[in-house]
């Protein structure tokens, strides 16, 4: 018999609907795994009592025949979403004991749809990282690691991807600023979608880079992602950048044929020295889509190689201001070691932030400072315009763009955190869509030389998640990727 925790979102909801099992049973099963996890460190916090209480309420609703769309479904939440009454720290010491009294719009919508909070997943501190190694609560392990060879789950939503891949959650929420949903999903063999900027409200999500941050689900299938995104997305008057655009039927789009669709292949993503395994998976993807009746065309995104440096100016600049509120006055950590006001600031922030966060705050401060603004920040925002124009041109010719999600599969813990730039290169394929605010999904499509998952990325036009769900479903079916 299949275990409850082997079921994805849709299967779990079907089981709950047919009363095969109760939400209380589902939640208990997941809680058991979370409590006994000594290997992955995917979760940093959970509240079994609250989860079980909510599960019982959900079962009651089902018994009364007034169930909600996601009723009884356990949902893991990246520690960057404010969940009322639960510790929310963005995995930083500076927010270690912060308990918000408010609920992020996205999680609030999911609870209103009947979803059950199951726990907080680990992440890179303030979502700054690509390996989950910068979390204040320790590294997270990729469930694909073999004995004695611990691999990173990717980042920054590493805890979420690891939890979903290890069947410790049917779905986990992530956020993506430069690849933080797609890259860990790719490393862990999960599906992860970053919707169009403005599709999901950012209200109540701890900000990293406001013009880039977007929430999205990490799941075990494309359709599962569609179901969750359907319930997360939508206009929010509390977020000035939220789009007042109707949310289409994502679930329906997962079963639409792709015959005649034009898929763009950007030549610039064929990096010098792109690993064979990655190249092969990409070729397979192209072949599968062709077989499904799509037309493959070459497109050009000439400014691709400038996307990463642009990102590493824009994102730190925004972060340097977004993280200025962590000053030891209103909430969070304040250093004990202070004599005066200046100490309160500089000592608190020196002790409260980790090395990567400090590095990015310093870069961000530098590129905005007098004498450097034009040379760095302004120039980067202009290059960003060129990157957006590249996509606009490309999308005149195609319906979606297919690329690898990452230049390599999961790497070993400690392997790439020696030099920041080497680490940053992980996001080379995911960052361009982020800068342009476009929707992008990563679908597990094959294995690397080590036998670890590799994802393919589909980038869609703005507010056209439907197309990438349709194409993504075909890729998923053809790849026939089996989770561990």
């Amino acid at each position, binding site marked *: 018999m299949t275990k409850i925790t082997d079921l994805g979102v849709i299967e779990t909801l079907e089981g709950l609907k047919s009363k095969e099992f109760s939400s209380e049973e589902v939640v208990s099963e997941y809680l058991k795994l979370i409590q006994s996890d000594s290997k992955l460190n995917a979760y940093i916090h959970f509240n079994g009592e609250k989860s079980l209480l909510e599960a019982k309420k959900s079962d009651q609703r089902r018994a009364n025949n007034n169930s909600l769309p996601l009723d009884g479904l356990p949902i893991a939440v990246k520690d960057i979403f404010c969940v009322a009454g639960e510790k929310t720290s963005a995995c930083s010491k500076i927010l270690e*004991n*912060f*308990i918000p*009294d408010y609920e992020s719009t996205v999680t609030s919508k999911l609870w209103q749809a009947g979803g059950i909070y199951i726990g907080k997943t680990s992440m890179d501190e303030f979502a700054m990282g690509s390996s989950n190694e910068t979390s204040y609560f320790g590294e997270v392990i990729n469930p694909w690691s073999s004995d004695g060879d611990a691999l990173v789950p990717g980042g920054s939503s590493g805890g979420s991807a690891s939890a979903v891949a290890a069947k410790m959650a049917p779905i986990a929420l992530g956020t993506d600023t430069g690849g933080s949903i797609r890259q860990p999903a790719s490393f862990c063999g999960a599906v992860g979608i970053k919707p169009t*900027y*403005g599709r999901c409200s950012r209200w109540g999500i701890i900000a990293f880079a406001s*013009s*880039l941050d977007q929430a999205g689900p990490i799941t075990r299938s494309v359709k599962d992602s569609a179901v969750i995104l359907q319930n997360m997305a939508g206009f929010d*008057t509390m977020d*000035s*950048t939220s*789009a*007042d655009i109707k949310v289409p039927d994502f679930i329906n789009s997962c079963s639409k044929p792709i015959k005649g669709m034009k898929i763009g292949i950007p030549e610039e993503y064929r990096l010098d020295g792109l690993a064979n395994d990655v190249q092969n998976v990409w070729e397979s993807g192209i072949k599968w889509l062709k077989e499904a009746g799509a037309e493959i065309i070459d497109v050009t995104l000439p*400014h691709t190689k*400038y996307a990463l*440096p*642009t990102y*590493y*100016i824009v994102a730190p600049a925004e972060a*340097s201001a977004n993280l200025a509120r962590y*000053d030891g*006055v*209103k*909430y*969070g*950590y*304040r250093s004990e070691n202070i*004599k005066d*006001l*200046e*100490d*309160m*600031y*500089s*000592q608190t*922030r*020196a002790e409260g932030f980790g090395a990567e966060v*400090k*590095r990015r*705050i*310093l*870069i961000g*401060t*530098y590129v905005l*400072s007098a004498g*450097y603004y034009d040379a*760095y920040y*302004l*120039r*980067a*925002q*202009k*290059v960003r*315009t*060129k990157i957006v124009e590249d996509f606009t041109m490309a999308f005149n010719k195609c319906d979606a763009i297919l690329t690898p999600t990452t230049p390599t599969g999961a790497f070993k813990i400690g392997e790439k955190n020696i030099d*920041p*730039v080497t680490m940053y290169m992980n996001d080379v394929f995911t960052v361009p869509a982020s800068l*342009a*605010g476009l929707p992008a999904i990563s679908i597990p499509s094959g294995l690397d030389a080590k036998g670890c998952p590799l994802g393919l990325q589909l980038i869609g036009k*703005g507010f056209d998640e439907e197309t990438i769900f349709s194409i993504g479903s075909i890729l998923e079916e053809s790849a026939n990727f089996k989770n561990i």
Partner: protein
Amino acid sequence: MSLDKSTLKRVAYLARIKIDNSEIDKMTEELNNIMKWVEKLNEVDIEDVQPMTGVSSMTLREREDKVTDGGLEDKILSNAPEKIDGSFTVPKVIE
């Protein structure tokens, strides 16, 4: 443009992050490597290009002028590291 130690100190002061003298050399080098890498952007012709000011082409939405919030002093202060009589406190500010 290279980022020297004195610039790093100034930036760290602006960002209010204390840096130990022992860290300065390493950090200067690290940040310099990053800044050298991003200088690749100098290759791009940005003449007559408008900088991005918002990802979407939407315009700013405005809200009605109504009092809908406040009266939360307990909740506002509940996470404060230090507080007295309904106020946050900080080491005395000398103006």
